[in-house]
């Protein structure tokens, strides 16, 4: 068992609960999508899994230990908005930061770190961009850098927060094809509000709107989507996308 959430409820101080009675188990090698409307608690759930927020009720275990201890196995791909895109840093240097915690504490990096960085750049088709500045990259390229940085941690679980929020449809497919390949050796957990697109790729979907509503791709009927979003127009749009990707 990779990730296990038991009876998780969560509320920020002095406000209404964001999550209620969440049960979720993610097995090794799974490709799981958590979908749901904005404000449905997706990011909060990720922060709990990553140990960035303390669990107040319920229990989360990563390979049997607490989220903070389990961080060493988790590679995290944040949303674009979480850092400044014009920070002066090269692709290579940004990816090397994924080695923190596994490399030596003082001064620069070791040879192994560079080897690993080169390997993950090959995997994410970034080798030719390795000396480019981050602020010259397109949205899709930047997303691949963030994935590569997470891979440089040598994780067993890859956790992505809205990986396709800022890129166009064509590039979106590239990213998910890449994730599909990575799924051969990694457990993957993706959070997205784009329910239609994600369901073509992931093997298990958890719909989150304060509570978890359903659990597998097969059960994902238009009716359920409509319940989840409480917005028929959006559901129709997404239904259309599902038929495109129902392979």
């Amino acid at each position, binding site marked *: 068992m990779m990730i296990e959430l038991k009876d998780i409820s969560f509320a920020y101080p002095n406000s209404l609960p964001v999550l209620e009675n969440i049960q979720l188990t993610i097995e090794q090698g799974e490709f799981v999508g958590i979908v749901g409307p904005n404000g449905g608690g997706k990011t909060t759930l990720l922060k709990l899994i990553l140990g*960035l927020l303390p669990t107040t009720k319920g229990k989360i275990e990563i390979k049997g230990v607490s989220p903070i201890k389990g961080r060493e196995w988790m590679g995290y791909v944040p949303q674009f908005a979480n*850092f*400044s895109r014009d920070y002066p*840093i090269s692709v290579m*240097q940004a990816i090397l*930061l*994924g080695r*923190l915690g596994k490399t030596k504490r003082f*001064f*620069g990096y070791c040879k192994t770190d560079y080897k690993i960085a080169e390997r993950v750049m090959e995997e994410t088709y970034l080798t030719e961009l390795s000396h480019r500045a981050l602020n010259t990259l397109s949205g899709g390229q930047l997303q691949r850098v963030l994935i590569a940085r997470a891979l440089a941690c040598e994780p067993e679980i890859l956790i992505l927060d809205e990986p396709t929020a800022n890129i166009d449809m064509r590039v979106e497919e590239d990213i998910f094809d890449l994730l599909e390949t990575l799924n051969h050796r990694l457990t993957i957990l993706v959070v997205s509000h784009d329910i239609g697109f994600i369901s073509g790729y992931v093997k298990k979907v958890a719909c989150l709107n304060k509570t978890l509503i359903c659990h597998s791709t097969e059960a994902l009927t238009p009716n359920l989507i409509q319940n989840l979003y409480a917005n028929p127009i959006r559901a129709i749009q997404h239904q259309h996308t599902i038929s495109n990707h129902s392979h």
Partner: protein
Amino acid sequence: MNFFDALMQYSFLQYALVAGLLAGLGCGVIGTYVVVKRISSLAGGIAHAVLGGMGAAYYFHVSVTLGALVAALFSALLLGWIRLRKQQNEDTLVSALWSIGMAVGILFISQTAGYNADLMTYLFGNILMVRIEDLYWMMALDVLLMATIGIYYKQFLAITFDEEFARLRGVSVDLFYLILLCLVALTVVLLMQVVGLILVIALLTLPAAIAILFVNDIFQIMIVASLLGMLFSSGGLILAYQPDLPVGAMIILMAAIVYLIAVLTKTFWQRFNYRKSGPMLK
């Protein structure tokens, strides 16, 4: 007598020149983080709060530099603590500390008989009054700054680039943030010898801001910014010497003019490239 003849003859000019070079080094290294991490208002708060410590030191007849150092480190830790507690009114607190420090300093100085004339020196600096002892501790500060940054280069890069990711990789983000603010405080005291506490922010940020326009790597920005800092401080000294102008003001104006030229050059260069090769994919 022109500057270079005078330089050969007067040790106070030699000290001034060396002080400028030492300050340039510090401002390049730490100023880079101040600019990329966007903490220049915090640095400004630290710089002005320092007057409180200097005034108190003067009143009690202890070393003014020591007073400045203590006040700088204290205000850095206080501001860091305020930010880490995620106070809603952080902006107000920074400005308040800014003025309170100055108020305390002015009160102490006003109560110290016979020293009032020195207030101007604190506010605007006087590089020509640097003594050889000052050069020793300035050098020591530079070594301390560079050693800390060198040893923890990765960690500082991580916390200034993406705090959340750094935390997930086991970096003590809060600790390194406080250390960074302390390094900023030390740099402020270092630069104050040259341009005074009011002008410190410009010398701290402009060299790095210019470097960032043309270089895309933190280490390279540090080198370019340090060279620019040295250029401005010695250039300001040279230009101010013959017409007998305030050196600190000349240094800042020189930095500001170069910054303006750099921004314009970059803008025109980008337009030119845009026309030549069409819009770049962003």
